[in-house]
């Protein structure tokens, strides 16, 4: 009648584990919450990462730029805002003349002071481009286009177009709308002398750069910054023809301009992310801490439970139960906790992501900051099962150590 049946044993082990979990609901709930929070931290930070990269990709894709030319920052702390490309319009024209390129244009970045009151000017980043495009998705008004006259007879050292697109939050703060004029300048002293017309509001570059950013014609920005003579820019972007190989074009241009970095748009996203090492490291640290914290809490909890039951485990071992069966009863609890906690974390992700997106949209104007592609959920599930397995293995191993005769005397 009595013979070894692994399946029967496995079912019995699962039943005992379930009974143990059911008899201590408080402990079980605490462990599930610990794993759930660890999984949630991974899915939320993963969603944020996916959202940031997604926003960057959307920005680059909407801009339709295939190739990015940039200079090495002179000072690493200034990041990509250093306008280290000299003679940018000339380089852009040269690149445009290539047969495999449909067009190229420079982009400059500079801090400007702007406001309606000369005594209360606000410092904000500004991007100089030749024209706005449909990707700006204007909340109010429209964009600008630098007229051809601005380039004729040498570029003027004074702003000529004098049109600006503001971030909606900045426009709201200043109390201006399309048609109004504001002061704009590279310093607080020069700004009151330059009046620009607000032509529209858009958060396009704000989402792209991560802070409230204004957009204006590059020639005007250079005029304000006093870099018209050197014709400085941060990037030159180019589109390639449909049949061109982007990597080959990139290599050609890189050979032609060895003093600059030439990247495709995909590489540019990676390069921009790499320039924010502290943010990336902080995110990774938070995820790491959540995982380690969840693991340590759950492992400790079950190690403690196992320690308290050491005499019972030793007694059952003495009665003939194998070490694996005894370890299995403890380990199965860890696995169950991991899976249940993981499901809890995954189930909580969508509503919390929706809440955070609503918060970020209403507070800082970033819509859909967090994205939840299937890979984010997959990562959370893998973590939960992995965590459950670690808890199972560690506590099961501890249980195995307690199944010795010495513990009968404790």
């Amino acid at each position: 009648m009595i013979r070894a049946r692994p399946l029967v044993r496995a079912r019995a082990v699962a039943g005992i584990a379930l009974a143990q979990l059911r008899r201590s609901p408080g402990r079980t709930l605490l462990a599930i919450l610990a794993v759930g929070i660890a999984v949630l931290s991974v899915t939320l930070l993963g969603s944020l990462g996916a959202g940031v990269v997604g926003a960057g990709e959307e920005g680059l894709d909407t801009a339709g730029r295939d190739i990015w030319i940039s200079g090495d920052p002179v000072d690493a702390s200034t990041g990509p805002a250093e306008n280290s490309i000299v003679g940018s319009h000339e380089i852009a024209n040269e690149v445009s003349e290539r047969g495999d390129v449909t067009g190229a244009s420079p982009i400059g970045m500079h801090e400007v002071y702007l406001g309606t009151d000369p005594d209360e000017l606000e410092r904000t980043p500004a991007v100089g481009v030749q024209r706005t495009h449909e990707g700006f998705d204007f909340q109010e008004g429209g964009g600008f286009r630098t007229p051809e006259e601005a380039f004729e007879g040498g570029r003027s050292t004074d702003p000529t177009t004098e049109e600006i697109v503001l971030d909606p939050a900045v426009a709201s703060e200043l109390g201006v709308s399309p048609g109004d004029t504001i002061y704009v300048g590279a310093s607080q002293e020069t700004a009151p002398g330059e009046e620009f017309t607000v032509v529209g509001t858009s958060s396009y570059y704000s989402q792209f750069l991560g802070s409230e950013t204004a957009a204006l014609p590059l020639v005007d920005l250079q005029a304000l910054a006093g870099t018209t003579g050197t014709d400085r820019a941060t990037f030159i972007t180019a589109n390639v023809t449909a049949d061109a190989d982007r990597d080959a074009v990139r290599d050609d241009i890189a050979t032609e301009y060895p003093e600059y970095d030439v990247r495709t748009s995909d590489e540019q996203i990676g390069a921009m992310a790499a320039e924010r090492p502290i943010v990336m490291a902080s995110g990774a640290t938070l995820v790491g801490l959540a995982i380690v914290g969840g693991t340590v809490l759950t492992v400790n909890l079950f190690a403690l439970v196992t320690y308290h039951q050491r005499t019972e485990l030793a007694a059952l071992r003495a009665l003939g139960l194998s070490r694996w069966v005894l370890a299995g009863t403890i380990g199965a609890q860890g696995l169950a906790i991991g899976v249940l906690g993981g499901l809890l974390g995954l189930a909580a992700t969508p509503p919390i992501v929706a809440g955070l997106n609503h918060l970020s949209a209403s507070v800082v104007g970033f819509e859909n900051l967090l994205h939840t592609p299937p890979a984010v959920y997959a990562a959370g599930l893998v973590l939960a099962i992995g965590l459950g397995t670690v808890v199972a293995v560690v506590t099961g191993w501890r249980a195995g150590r307690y199944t010795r005769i010495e513990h009968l005397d404790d």
Partner: protein
Amino acid sequence: MIQRVLRRSSARDSQTGGDSDANTAVRLDGVTHSYGSAGGRLDADRDPTVIALRDVALTCDSGETVGLEGPSGSGKSTILHAIAGLLVPTAGSVEILGTDITRLSDHERTRLRRRHVGIVFQRFHLLPSLSARANVALPLVQAGVPRSTRRERATTLLSDVGLSGRATHLPSELSGGECQRVAIARALATDPDVIVADEPTGELDTETGSTVLELLTDVGSDRAVVVASHDDDTLAITDRVVTLRDGSVMSDGG
């Protein structure tokens, strides 16, 4: 009140063999055991060797109940552990149903214990999260007995020890005497030939202890039962008392 506990299976005897007397279930011969011979890395850390048993000879037949008496540290528990195969003595032989278990591997010893030896502890050692019935059924899990059969057998055993109405109770809902009766039922789950009991009434009051002793007497009618105890009432139910002192047998059958 307490009914007769399950009979032994006749097929079991054929699984073991040897040249011992047919009725002798337990035989210890020249058993010596010392603890602490393996020391630490430094001489100063080395534990002094303690001789727990010295040349102990002992037998227990089927249907016989043998009591072990002696002060703490006299070797009572060590003898029980040796009979159960929980430790291998330094020297000598320990035969269970004619098989010298000192010659078996750890795995074989565990298997023999599971099939032929039941253990009753002083402190019951029941799993607190499992019902009385589930605790009794636990030894059958290892043998791969299907759930329905385990339940049926555990229910029968609980009924035999007078706890038919307590099958679904947790250990925390049972009295000390009831817990010990559950532990005895658990020891009988695999229908063993030999029962070892270490101070089975040590945690119980006199009245409750006598109920447990009545049960043990009943159990021992067709099994070999070895009981270690300080308690005169417990020793009074045995057929023979072996007195130990400093690991040696001072008298056998006193």
